[in-house]
C-alpha cells in the first residue's frame, strides 16, 4: 500500500512527510524529520521520554500514528529554546542539576512546559502528579520538582 502523505505543523514550521501506517509520530519525528530530541524509552506510553504536544495537548508520540496528525500542530523539545536562548525551564534544569544521563530530560521539559501553561504556580504535589508519566532513573525526582518550581517563579515574574 502507498505511503500516507501528511502535512502538519512542527514547532511552527509547515512540514510534509510520507509514512507507513505503522510508523508512530515518534518514528516520523526522529527518522524522517530528524528531530531526535524526543527519545524512545519504552515505546508503550509508560516512560514519557517521547512527550510532545499535539494541538497543545501533552501526549506520548510513541502512542500516536504519524498518519493521524494531518493538519495538526506539534510542538517538540526542539521548539523550546528560542535560537541560542534557553527556555527558563531548561536553565533551571541545569541550575538545579535536574538531569544526569539526560534521556528523560526532553520529555520532562515538554511535559513541564505543558503544566506551566495551565498552572503558573503549581504545588509540589501538582508537579509530581502531572509528571507521573515521565520516568527518571537518575535524579530521584526532587531536583526536577525544584527546577520546575523555580522556572515557574521566573516565568511568573515575566
Amino acid at each position, binding site marked *: 500500500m502507498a505511503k500516507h502523505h501528511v502535512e502538519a505543523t512542527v514547532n511552527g514550521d509547515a512540514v510534509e512527510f510520507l509514512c507507513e501506517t505503522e510508523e508512530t509520530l515518534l518514528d516520523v519525528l526522529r527518522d524522517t524529520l530528524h528531530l531526535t530530541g524526543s527519545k524512545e524509552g519504552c515505546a508503550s506510553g509508560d516512560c514519557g521520554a517521547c512527550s510532545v504536544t499535539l494541538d497543545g495537548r*501533552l501526549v*506520548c508520540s510513541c502512542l500516536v500514528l504519524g498518519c493521524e496528525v494531518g493538519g495538526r500542530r506539534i510542538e517538540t523539545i526542539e521548539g523550546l529554546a528560542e535560537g541560542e536562548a534557553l527556555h527558563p525551564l531548561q536553565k533551571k534544569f541545569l541550575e538545579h542539576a535536574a538531569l544526569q544521563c539526560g534521556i528523560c530530560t526532553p520529555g520532562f521539559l515538554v511535559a513541564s512546559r505543558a503544566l506551566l501553561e495551565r498552572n503558573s504556580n503549581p504545588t509540589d504535589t501538582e508537579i509530581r502528579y502531572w509528571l507521573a*508519566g515521565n520516568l527518571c532513573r537518575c535524579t530521584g525526582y526532587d531536583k526536577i520538582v525544584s527546577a520546575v518550581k523555580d522556572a515557574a517563579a521566573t516565568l511568573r515574574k515575566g
Partner: protein
Amino acid sequence: MRYEAPETVERATALLAESAGEARVLAGGTDLLVQMRADVVEPALIVDIKRIAETRAITEDRGGWRIGAAVTGAELKEHPRLQQVWPGVVEAANLIGSTQVQGRATLGGNLCNGSPAADSVPALIAAGAVATLAGPQGRRELPVEDVMLGPRRLALGKGEIVVSFRLPPRPPRSSDAYLRFIPRTEMDIAVVGVGVSLTVDASGTITDARVSLGAVAPRVLLVREAAAAIVGSRLDRPAQDRLEAAARAACAPIDDKRGTVEFRIQVAGVLARRAALIALDRARTS
C-alpha cells in the same frame, strides 16, 4: 496495513463491515498501539474515528449529557459542568494512566478494549450510562453493563462501533464516586474498582442507587443487590455492612500478580462502602 479516518459514522461502519481481514477501531490508541507493538494484534485495517464530529462532542441531551466515544479523559476533566454533575465518571476517567495518556485515552476505547479492570467502566455503569452503537444495520442503544461480555469480548456485531454515551438526567441531591485499589499512588491497573451513584431525599434517605464492581469478575458487574442494600437507608452502619456483604457476594475474581481472590473480595466490600460514603456526601451538598 490500511489506515482510514472517515468523517461520518456511516463510512466508518461500512469500512469495518467490508474489511476481509482483522479491522480495529482507533480512538486514543493508548491500548491499540501498545497491542500492535507487542504483536498481540495485527490489523489489516485501522479505522480512526476521531474525525467524526459526533464522537468528539460533549453536549446536553434531553436533560442529561451525551459524551462522544472519542472524548478524552483530559477533555472530560476540563469541561466546565460535567465534573459537578458526574464527579465519579470524571474522576474514574482521569485515573487512567498518566497526563500523557489522559490526553489521548477515551471512554469508548476504555470500554471496547474489553478489560474487566477498565477504570471508567464501573463509573459509567453506576451512572446508568447507555451506549449508542452504530453498525451496518443502523443504530441501537445498549446499557454499558451489557456491552462487555468477558475479557476482550464485546456484544458488538461486525462493523458496529460505539459512537457515544448518554448519561441520564440527574435529580436533585444526586452524585457519584469511583474508587480503585492499586498498590501505588498513580499509574497502575485496578486490583478492584467500585463505582457508586445515588440520590437522596431531603431527609438524607437514599432513594435510588447503582453499584458497579470492576476487576472482580470476567466483566465489569452491575450489582443490583448492593444497591438494594442501601436504598431506603441513610447509609448508617447496618446499611454499610449490608452493602459490603452484597458487594463481596457478587465477586468472582481470579488470583493474579496484582491480587489474590481473598484480597479482591475483601477490598471490594471496603471500597464499596467508602465510595458510597463519598457519593452520599457529594449528593447532600450538590
